[in-house]
């Protein structure tokens, strides 16, 4: 049934739609007796930046963690290129090209920047020098701090390191969990610009954000979650101008 609904959503006319990379179908996730996700449907096409918005407790992080294998859904499916991947553990999913930047960054505080990045390439036999250089080109600030310990970096730098570390695993899809959390607006803007750049270099991005305005400005499409279900979805520009979104998430009176 869900397949037919998905087909309906194919954009009519215009450019041909890119193939679906990641798809969540009727996801239901429980924490004990609490139903955190009540049937979430979501698709991410190749080359897109998809923003997942919503208030605290709407289920954004749960959705992302389910997609990256940290939580197993009770019902529903997670599909990567049409193949089911739900139930696969997160450390194995890395090999399928899913890079997860967890909430709160999670850099290794007592490893240096370089060691952190090397850990990011853990799934490979050896560290690709070109990948490391790419990270340092994207984030020059990390290049200046190669031997500094992760825990001594500023919040913004830690976020950059977390993203850089995920890139070292050569992900096809990058899952970002609130990269703007606790950062100054200027840094957030910088990080979003770099995420956009990463996307333009060919990585698909699924982004969880509270910062709706900035996320939608960068994203191609967006989903708005409310109490564990998708309340709205559409082109980012449409959502950005939608009065309901503006009222609820952009702090404008209706």
């Amino acid at each position, binding site marked *: 049934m869900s397949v037919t609904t998905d087909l309906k959503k194919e954009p009519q006319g215009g450019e041909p739609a890119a193939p679906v990379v990641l798809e969540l179908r009727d996801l239901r996730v429980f924490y004990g007796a609490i139903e955190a996700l009540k049937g979430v449907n979501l698709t991410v096409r190749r080359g897109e930046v998809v923003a997942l918005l919503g208030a605290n407790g709407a289920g954004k992080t749960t959705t992302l963690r389910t997609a990256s294998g940290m939580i197993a859904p009770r019902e529903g499916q997670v599909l990567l290129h049409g193949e089911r991947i739900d139930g696969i*553990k997160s450390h194995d999913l890395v090999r399928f090209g899913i890079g997860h930047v967890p909430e709160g960054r999670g850099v*290794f505080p*007592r*490893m240096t920047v370089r060691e952190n990045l090397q850990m990011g390439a853990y*799934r490979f036999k050896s560290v690709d020098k070109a990948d490391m250089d790419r990270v340092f080109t994207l984030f020059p600030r990390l290049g200046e701090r190669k031997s500094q310990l992760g825990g001594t970096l500023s919040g913004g730098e830690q976020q950059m390191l977390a993203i850089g570390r995920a890139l070292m695993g050569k992900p096809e899809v990058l899952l970002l969990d609130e990269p703007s959390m606790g950062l100054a607006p200027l840094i957030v803007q910088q990080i979003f610009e770099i995420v956009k750049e990463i996307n333009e270099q060919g990585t698909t991005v699924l982004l969880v954000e509270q910062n709706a305005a900035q996320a939608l400005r960068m994203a191609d499409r967006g989903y708005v979650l409310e109490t564990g279900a998708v309340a709205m979805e559409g082109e980012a520009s449409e959502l950005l101008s939608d009065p309901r979104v503006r009222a609820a998430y952009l702090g404008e009176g209706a």
Partner: protein
Amino acid sequence: MSIKTSTAQGAGQDSPKSATAPLSAAARLRRVHWYQEPRWRRLGALLALAVTLRLMTGEEGTTQDLFLALREDFTGVGLWVWLAIAVAVWAVREFLADQTSRAVKGTKKVSSGPLERVRQVWSAGKRVRMGVLTAVLALVVFGPLGVERYWQQVLVDQIAIFVLLAIGLNVVIGWAGLLDLGFIAFFAIGAYSAAYWTGALPVQPPVALNNFLVLPIAVLTCLVAGVILGAPTLRLRGDYLAIVTLGFHEIVYLVAKNADGVTEGARGVKVERFSVDLGFFSYEWKLDPMPYYWLLVAFVVLAIFLFLRLEHSKVGRAWTAIREDEVAAAATGVPTVRYKLMAFAIGASTSGVAGVAYASKVGYFNPENFAILLSILVLAYVIFGGMGSIPGVLFGAAFLVWLPEYLREWVDPKDRYMYLGALLVIMMIYRPQGVLPSRRRKRELQMAEAGIGGADATGPAEGRQP
């Protein structure tokens, strides 16, 4: 001293209007008393240490006169000698500290203390390293030939066995960051495996084996026991895991003690000693401790070789990552449960080898040889020497096992562990990273002092639960 008082007054003058009292609350809190300065605090600590040492080395108490020890210790000349030594140490330290801090001012690299200098020479050249290692190994192998029989016994029965145990526990706690308080349970399993397979227990094995052939079996048994205990419990962390392993130890200990029909219970077991019989060559380990010693040195060297290779492999890096942040480790593709299980099983099997070696050396053991205290002592050796650092762990175990034996000649034997305790307390206050810390562990403590992450061995770096 005078500077501090003046700043305190200055702060008081800055806010005369807001303060109702002459000295505002903030100024009062900001004031640094002279005795709070590091220099004077160090003197205080040293004086306290001197008094403690006087009490420890002084008159022994009696039940007839309860205050005899106190009276004697505080009136005699001894106290003044100790205090004088304390003041002298303090003066030398402060004086030298002034000199060095002045000397290094402006220079980039601050070399602190003689250890740092040794380290510089050490890292200077491969030849130095090889030379030192060969010398140390030669000393370890041949040195004990020259010591008394009693010390040779201590070296084998205790030091070598505990060094092996400490190296094993180091993998579990130092590298993977799992707090295992039931480590000795695997030691017991190893010892009882040796007893069972050599036919020393009331229950007979299908085939009686040579002690050496028991080694791989014991490794396997402990591996399986480690996995059985670990698989359901390694999702727990820190304190919880410690309690579970503690429970596991008690189970093993009580079974050994009470299952008379299987383990001989508290009567203990007599085990044959090591022997080799290959037809063309046969040798029997008898009462002379040295052959056992060389055998154990071989075990230790083999274990060190294997573990060092592991530490510098992907496995070692995975352990570090797990210790730092489990969620992030999983997100970078480290199968966390598998590697934790691996560390646990490796530690367990090392403990098992030590158990077989112990049983085959002493020839007789009973459940009391596997009391919980030993688990805690091994943990103390690892922490004392420097968690995660092989040289540190070797030194920690060797030194702390040797010390009580050595003290036997000097103090009342009943008091020996008091000195050990005092040493551990002092050590944890002034050098929590251990005698020869690993580079990483040192970082952890430095960062903990700077308020980034915890200094405990096993907690996640940012207090995050997986």
